């Protein structure tokens, strides 16, 4: 978007892009999600003494399409040299004029006009239903690492001595960024509990844990830091106790519900990253759609096994897993083939509410720990960007038999219904 905005125009106008936008709303924050970016073509600009102007038909078409999708419209331009960009009086007047028809065709909004400035600065105004016109105070660019505009304000030497050895790797700034970050974990079994243990000890500021299951004799051995006395307790309770015992600075939010639930959705919407440690295609389908709608990076892990017939001495023929980093805008789980409608229908028998878990394949904590640890590394990288100068593979596969890692390639499918239908749509509208 920035490259497009900084290209010169023949008529010397500021360049503009139009966006179709959704709204991701929580009690503490409203976020505009971008579904589609439409640059205005050079031949469509018109000279105007008041600055950039373009063929109004274009805005009508873009906003009309947006309205059909129950989305709003955003105008973006650049004040490239300004470190503290704001809408000029002319820009503001233009926005207020544009709002009149936009509120008619798309009364759910949101609608916005923003300006990108020098460095990592952004300003502007947004119209939010029930809230009116509000200032735009920041932006997040969903990439690896996630870029936050303006940059995160990390106080110097803010972290406790317990992180001293870790800070030798990720720096004071990196530790401070972790402290401000919010990470969600969906699924707190063999994989998820290890993820929780590690992100709590790494010092993520807030950890949202989502699982409706309880600790039982059959799963206790694989849950990190789980005690015999935890049998019968909710898994979220165990995670909260890990934080209390190991790192009270970390705030845990426990959602003892199966995703998606209203509380779970509200809690996860504010996350910088979500780690999916679930065991069903249906759950993954819900999570990837949610992540795509609200533009939250998703790290998915899984592990599977193949054993020989009972009675043989050497039982394990294969144990393998994956650590996939799904960045909104890139290939989704349907694009990579991890999910398909066929797989989901086989799992549910055509009734999503009857999703069955996997067929309880064998599991061992040490193998789970490999993929869980790799997932935590990816989450730390997404948030802090400390691993510099390396093109990290997005889709990592683990072969437990040969103790090797390899990557697979995948591209976004232009006809993927999730990527085209859910990306940046924000909250669903009824």
């Amino acid at each position, binding site marked *: 978007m920035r490259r497009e905005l900084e290209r010169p125009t023949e008529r010397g106008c500021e360049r503009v892009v139009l966006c179709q936008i959704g709204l991701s709303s929580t009690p503490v924050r409203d976020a505009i999600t971008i579904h589609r970016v439409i640059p205005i073509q050079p031949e469509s600009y018109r000279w105007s003494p008041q600055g950039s102007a373009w063929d109004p038909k274009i805005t009508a078409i873009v906003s009309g399409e947006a309205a059909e999708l129950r989305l709003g419209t955003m105008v973006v331009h650049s004040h490239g040299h300004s470190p503290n960009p704001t809408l000029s009086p002319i820009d503001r007047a233009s926005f207020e004029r544009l709002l009149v028809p936009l509120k008619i065709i798309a009364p759910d909004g949101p609608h916005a006009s923003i300006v990108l400035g020098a460095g990592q600065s952004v300003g502007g105004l947004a119209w939010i239903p029930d809230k009116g016109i509000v200032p735009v105070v920041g932006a997040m660019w969903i990439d690896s690492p996630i870029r936050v505009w303006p940059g995160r304000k990390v106080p110097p030497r803010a972290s406790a001595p317990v992180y001293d050895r870790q800070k030798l790797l990720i720096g004071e700034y990196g530790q401070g960024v972790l402290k401000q970050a919010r990470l969600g974990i969906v699924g707190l079994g063999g994989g998820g509990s290890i993820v929780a243990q590690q992100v709590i000890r790494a010092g993520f500021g807030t950890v949202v844990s989502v699982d409706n299951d309880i600790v039982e004799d059959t799963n206790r051995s694989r849950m990190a830091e789980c005690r015999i006395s935890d049998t019968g307790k909710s898994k979220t309770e165990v995670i909260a106790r890990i934080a209390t015992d190991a790192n009270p600075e970390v705030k845990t939010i426990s959602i003892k519900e199966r995703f998606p639930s209203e509380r779970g959705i509200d809690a996860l919407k504010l996350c910088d990253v979500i780690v999916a440690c679930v065991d069903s295609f249906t759950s993954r389908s819900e999570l990837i759609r949610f992540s795509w709608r609200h533009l939250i990076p998703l790290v998915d892990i*899984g592990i599977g096994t193949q054993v020989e017939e009972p009675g043989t001495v050497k039982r394990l023929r294969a144990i*393998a*897993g994956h650590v996939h980093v799904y960045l909104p805008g890139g290939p989704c789980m349907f694009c990579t083939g991890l999910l398909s409608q066929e797989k989901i229908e086989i799992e549910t028998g055509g009734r999503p509410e009857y999703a069955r878990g996997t067929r309880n394949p064998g599991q061992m904590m040490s193998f789970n720990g490999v993929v869980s640890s790799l997932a935590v590394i990816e989450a730390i990288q997404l948030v802090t960007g400390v691993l510099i100068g390396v093109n990290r593979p997005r889709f990592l596969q683990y072969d437990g038999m*040969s103790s090797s890692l390899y990557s697979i*390639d*995948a591209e976004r499918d232009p006809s993927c219904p999730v990527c085209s239908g859910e990306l940046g749509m924000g909250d669903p509208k009824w």
Partner: protein
Amino acid sequence: MDDVKKAIVTRELTSLYGEQAVAIKALPDGKVLFKIVDVPLPLGCTPENTDVLLVYENGVDMPQVLVRQGIHLKSGESPRSTNPMSVDGEPWMSFSANFPFDLTKPVTHFVIGKLGRFAQPS
């Protein structure tokens, strides 16, 4: 193709051809492609090596084996019963080769057996 199957096939291919020679790509339609570079062809063929593409369809154990176009046999002739095709935007060639697929053997056994077709005179 699940993680276990991917791991088994990858392990079998890299153990023979080396890690650097094998690349994997997942397609949205559920196919998984394994590309192996510089696989030796039977003696006398030109070129001496070719790239091989294994195409695994969803739920099917036996892969389709494809090679690069432009292979000539020891006789100098082009092999018969071949079919040029495009997979994921790249040109490949399917070929007719009567070699049974055995799930109990590594996939490399199948690949080598199929490529043996190019040792035939025509």
